């Protein structure tokens, strides 16, 4: 699907582009060969407006005030909880490819001078799948947010469960849900920001548990895989099935936020949540 929306440039964003230099790649939107550097820091196709998937740190650069990000638990590392053959090697390979230790980066930052806890998943690391480390880092992030009374902004992108951790991965859904409920019961704000792709167990837990659920345009968001549904139904699904726009229509997303407007939108939401109450 094409996305030809014109975006407003936000002047307060000053970060340099971080696209890999000198590489060409086919755009998944228009199939044209695009010089990757021409995508710019927002990684938007100049020809068709298609959003490329961001790495966690590319996203952090777009969303956090300059130099405000402080990372938590960056060395928390996977073990092989059920002795799954080859899991250690898979992890090592993903770590070498992405320069990350796990599929999520967490920490605190400022968004237009307002301090928040932030978590950003990275689909380049084993499809952002939900393993023990991801579950533990999110849990610790919310526990920190409860302790210091901070809002949490979580950018999701995940294929769902980490298959190599089987049942332990499933338990992460309950573990993270419990800490999110605790954070919520303390009257604190959780903004879930869904990006492409967010499916399976992540959709069926923290992606859908935000007080406010935002999504990037044309992101794949769903519980079941499209092919699984097509196989059972033997019917074709509409083109926009399981897109952000589809979920907005069905009532499961509050607002679709174009990539260039994320900083401004988050800043405005946080501002309204931080003004004094009526008794002051």
């Amino acid at each position: 699907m094409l996305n030809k929306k014109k975006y407003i440039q936000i002047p307060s964003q000053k970060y340099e582009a971080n696209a890999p230099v000198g590489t060409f790649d086919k755009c998944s939107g228009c199939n044209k060969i695009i010089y990757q550097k021409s995508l710019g820091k927002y990684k938007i196709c100049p020809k068709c407006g298609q959003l490329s998937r961001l790495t966690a740190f590319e996203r952090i650069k777009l969303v956090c005030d300059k130099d405000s990000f402080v990372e938590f638990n960056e060395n928390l590392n996977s073990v092989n909880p059920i002795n799954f053959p080859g899991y250690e090697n898979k992890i090592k390979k993903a770590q070498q490819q992405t320069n990350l230790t796990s599929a999520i980066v967490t920490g605190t930052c400022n968004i237009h001078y307002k301090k928040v806890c932030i978590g950003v998943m990275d689909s380049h690391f084993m499809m952002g799948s939900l393993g023990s480390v991801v579950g533990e880092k999110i849990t610790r992030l919310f526990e920190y947010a409860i302790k210091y009374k901070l809002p949490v902004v979580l950018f999701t992108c995940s294929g769902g469960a980490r298959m190599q951790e089987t049942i332990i991965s499933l338990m992460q859904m309950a573990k993270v849900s419990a800490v999110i409920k605790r954070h919520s019961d303390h009257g604190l704000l959780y903004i879930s920001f869904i990006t492409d792709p967010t499916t399976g167990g992540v959709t069926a837990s923290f992606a859908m548990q935000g007080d406010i659920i935002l999504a990037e345009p044309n992101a794949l968001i769903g519980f079941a895989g499209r092919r699984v549904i097509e196989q059972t139904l033997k019917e074709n699904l509409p083109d926009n099935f399981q897109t952000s726009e589809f979920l907005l229509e069905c009532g499961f997303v509050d607002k679709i936020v174009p990539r260039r407007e994320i900083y401004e939108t988050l800043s405005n939401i946080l501002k309204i949540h931080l003004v004094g109450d009526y008794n002051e």
Partner: protein
Amino acid sequence: MSSAYDKVKIARNIKRPTSLDFINNIFDDFIEFAGDRSFRDDKAIIGGIATIDKKPVTVIGIQKGQNLEDNIKTNFGQVHPEGYRKALRLMKQGEKFNRPIICFINTAGAFCGKEAEERGQGEAIAKNLLEMSTLKVPIISIITGEGGSGGALALAVADNVVILENAVYSVLSPEGFSSILWKSNDKASDAATLMKLTASDLLDLKIVDKIIAEPSNGLENNADLTYDLIKVYILKTLYTLCKLDSEQLICNRYDRFRNFGMYT
């Protein structure tokens, strides 16, 4: 000793007692309640109120059929979003009237379909996980057959999770697992072994708190002893859980799930 995949086949046996059988044989005075108060009544979830040893409980189960006709009604025990919402409604009702909640789980997984997506399958499961974590009354979940993924977990954020001897609990079906990892459906048996989905594997991993024995000649032939064992287990466990104040109960439940995961 039977292999993990043999257990999967036993767990899926169509003649295995259904949640309704467990409810009718373990509790007295069961009154079934319907509907999610929003969209429709999902027959894949049955629930209502009952007594055990004269004390009130809320009971909820995922219902499979034992023949095609029943399975069409219950959608083969594959719950739609409105089914999870019905279950949550009954759980909230239980909480209001201070009734412990007993869940029976037997599902291949949450239903995967166009309408389930349109009505928010992900959101429905997510909501149950969120709300169950702080329900103020004791929750016991019993996996009686298949415990399929998020669709099972949506009724299993409990203080105590127990499993029948031949039941399984997993992140995905062994067939699905095999097709993701090896791009083929016919390695389901190998997948089942790897996945640690049997009752004893799950006990080792502390995912479940106890295994409840089944008769050696098949649960479908003689379930009376197992019904009794479950009944005794529920009574014993409720006796302990009901002594805790709700704050302590919720705190223990939080820790139970907080501890899952291994990392370094």
